[in-house]
């Protein structure tokens, strides 16, 4: 009996909010009317509003600062990591093959680097202008 009443009440609530098809249900205790009156009274706070001091543009600017700071931290960490890896590779090579390898590597870098760095720089510049 209690379960049936509960089920009916649930059905009435779903119908009220359009989540179930209308089916002219009623309970002995006029639950539908009570619910409608109650929910109508709950609407007293429907348009509740307080004046708040929120500036969306300021929030966007703040987010940009945070994002830039995060990006800088990430880039700095990446740079330090790459430096450490390069230094350790050079150290290992130096230890295993002798100081001559250092000169070969330096010569190779001097020859190859401009061919890599210049196209990248041109690409970055053209992207920035676009």
């Amino acid at each position, binding site marked *: 009996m209690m379960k049936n009443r509960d089920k009916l*009440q*649930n059905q009435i*609530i*779903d119908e009220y*909010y359009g*989540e179930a098809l209308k089916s002219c249900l009623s309970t002995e205790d006029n*639950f539908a009317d*009570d*619910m409608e*009156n*109650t*929910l109508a*009274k*709950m609407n*007293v*706070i*429907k348009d*509740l*509003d*307080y004046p*708040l*001091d*929120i500036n*969306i*543009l300021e*929030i*966007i600017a*703040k*987010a940009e600062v*945070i*994002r830039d700071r995060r990006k800088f931290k990430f880039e700095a960490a990446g740079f330090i990591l790459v430096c450490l890896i390069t230094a350790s590779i050079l150290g290992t090579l130096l230890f295993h093959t002798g100081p001559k390898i250092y000169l070969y590597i330096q010569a190779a870098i001097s020859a190859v680097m401009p061919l890599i760095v210049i196209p990248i720089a041109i690409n970055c510049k053209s992207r920035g202008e676009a």
Partner: protein
Amino acid sequence: MTYNNKMNFLSSLPLYIERGGGFMDELQLINRAKQGNKSALNTLLSNNYAILKGYIIKMIGNPELSQDIIQEAMLKAVLNINKFNPEAKFSTWLIKIGTNIYIDYLRKNKTMEMISDFLESKEGNPEEITINNIEYQEVMNILMSLTYEKRAVFILKHYYGYKYEEIALILNCPVGTVRSRLHNTIKHIVSEFERKELI
């Protein structure tokens, strides 16, 4: 996009159409905002500000705390705009962020103070205004006596007409849980109104 994502996206399309369109506009704004367009981001947040504000104020009942939570929610939304997947509406995502911030706040602060402010009524005689204010206080007291999960379900359903599926997405719980929470909440509110002889 995986098969499941595609299916979710397609199944959510009727929700947008049902809510009177505006989906393509919002999608375009989201895409532009993701590309770093500040104006699009501003429009997107401005369009959804009223719903977020109304929801948070009703959830919290304290203007100062509401302001902090709304600001934090918007900040998080801007920072994570690239993570937003337009399977749901932007307002749904924004409300989800706001709800999570409020839950975090509740975890850190066990007690919360509700401001017993009064409604500003421009119409009606003093008697009506007094009655309205008493009703407002009672409604806020009943709402605040609910757990935040039940309060969120009730507010989203009753004041904003969200569907059970959307509320489930916001609160990260099954649809059945949303349904039973709403049923229990409404029965509780009706019984409270009866007990206080307000109806």
